[in-house]
């Protein structure tokens, strides 16, 4: 469908850069900072929109791995959530359903950790899956510029394709 979302966002950024920015009082540092951040945010979203579905799937896969490992470490209530996640992944469900289940798994896993302090197997499970999830999130947000050594980090393409 035209105009597509990418074109609309590109047009919005162009308007902000070419028309709105020159109209702002250069002494208004707060307005200028926020305008530049708004433009950068729109540009960031443009690059990420086409990848959104793949991210949702990967995040649910990470959550499913967490549920499976936490269940094996004693948080048995998460076994059913792991099965539910597999069913959603197999059926190619819509992103909202996948994300809702992911949030449910994270909630249940956090409660399992809170209920069983000192359980080494639980700690191991949380740390193992946290590496996958933080790597993904860091790659997703890498364009924000907060990585000290971005070249040394796994790329988003690699993490989404593995």
């Amino acid at each position, binding site marked *: 469908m035209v105009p597509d979302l990418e074109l609309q966002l590109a047009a919005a950024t162009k308007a902000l850069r070419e028309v709105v920015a020159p109209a702002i009082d250069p002494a208004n540092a707060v307005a200028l900072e926020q305008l530049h951040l*708004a433009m950068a945010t729109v540009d960031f979203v443009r690059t990420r929109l086409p990848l959104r579905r793949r991210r949702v799937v990967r995040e649910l896969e990470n959550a499913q791995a*967490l549920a499976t490992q936490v269940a094996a470490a004693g948080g048995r209530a998460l076994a059913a959530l792991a099965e539910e996640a597999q069913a959603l992944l197999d059926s190619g469900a819509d992103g909202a359903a996948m994300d809702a289940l992911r949030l449910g798994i994270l909630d249940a896993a956090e409660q399992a950790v809170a209920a069983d*302090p000192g359980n080494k197997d639980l700690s191991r499970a949380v740390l193992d899956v946290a590496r996958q999830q933080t790597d993904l999130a*860091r790659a997703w947000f890498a364009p*924000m510029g907060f990585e000290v050594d971005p070249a040394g980090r796994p790329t988003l393409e690699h993490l989404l394709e593995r």
Partner: protein
Amino acid sequence: MTQADAARWAPDDRFIAAVRARFPVEPEMDRVLTAKLRDRASGAHRPVGLDELVDSTRTLIEREIGPDFQISRARWLGGGASKLQMAFDLHWRGLECGEPRVTPMVVRMQPAASIVETSRRREFEMLQAMRGVVPVPECYWIDELGEIMPHPAIIYALAQGVAKPRARPSVQVTGIGTNFGPELRPVLAQQFVEHLARVHTAPAATLAGLTAFEPAAVGSNAGIVRQVMWWRRVWEEDRPEAMPLVELAAQWLVANAPVLDHASAVHGDFRAGNFLFDEDSRQITAWLDWELAVIGDRHQDLSWLSGHHFGHFAEDGRTFLACGLLPRDELFERYEKASGLTVDPARLKYFRVYNDFASCVHMLATACRVAMHGKSHQDVLVAWLASIGHVISGALRDTLEEVL
């Protein structure tokens, strides 16, 4: 939306009572956090205009000194991610009613919701306590509860100086990764270390005058456990989604809390970006942003300022400079000489976990929550900053792997 998510969106009495009971914190912070939750449920955010802020500032000053003054040149101040700041000139006769003068001032007011919800009373008290210890702006007035101002606020003198060299503009927001350059670096580094040592060795009598702070007892770990509870409570109140890593970190921090060996004033955000300096004299003119200050363990500041996200590599591409000023080991060595206090690697590691844990809470819980409710004057900045939480959670995960 789960029941707990709904309660976070519009906290009711039951939710508020539950978090207060589960996570005991200092009385002043309990007051602030409880007010935050009650305000969240109160409805939409209303932006505060410059004229409205000038009017309420005028009312506050008149309450304090009477009507013999004028306000001019009111303008918004940029910089910082958490508080709303307005600069203005005050035409008056000073607190002693002397000769007419013009004093540049700042109103520092919290927005309806902030990336860190803190106490203006504590900030005001700590700023006053640090006068004569390190350069800080002179504090004049406070509206602790937002009875006159739109929200709680303090008014202090506008400190002169810059946070980063004008010739070397930072590409990042709020002082992160500031590069001072090889010529300015050693001059500022010397003052940076000396000031840190002075803050941490402030006399016990100075700390005893801080009424909005609970004392921290040497030989006990109750103070740091209370700090862990503070941020664990905020996580419970603000997080948009759960993260078992944060719960795991909180458990480890409580189980391994070290006993205090020396009670220090701890700035809580001592780093490049939070001091101003004069580019001509190359002197630090003011330390700002004391809102996260506590009485506690110096290693909290030492670990914080040596964090990866506040530094960068030197021109050789190999030497990492803490806060863009000094290699970590050299900084700690100089600090030990200046303060007479030791730097304990085990405590540094403990507070690395603590600081990353607290930062995860700020960025992945509160920053997101603030933007979700649209309750600050700079949601776009807050939402942008939130993403650094993933870099920090990666570091938290790696450190926990080492210690667990």
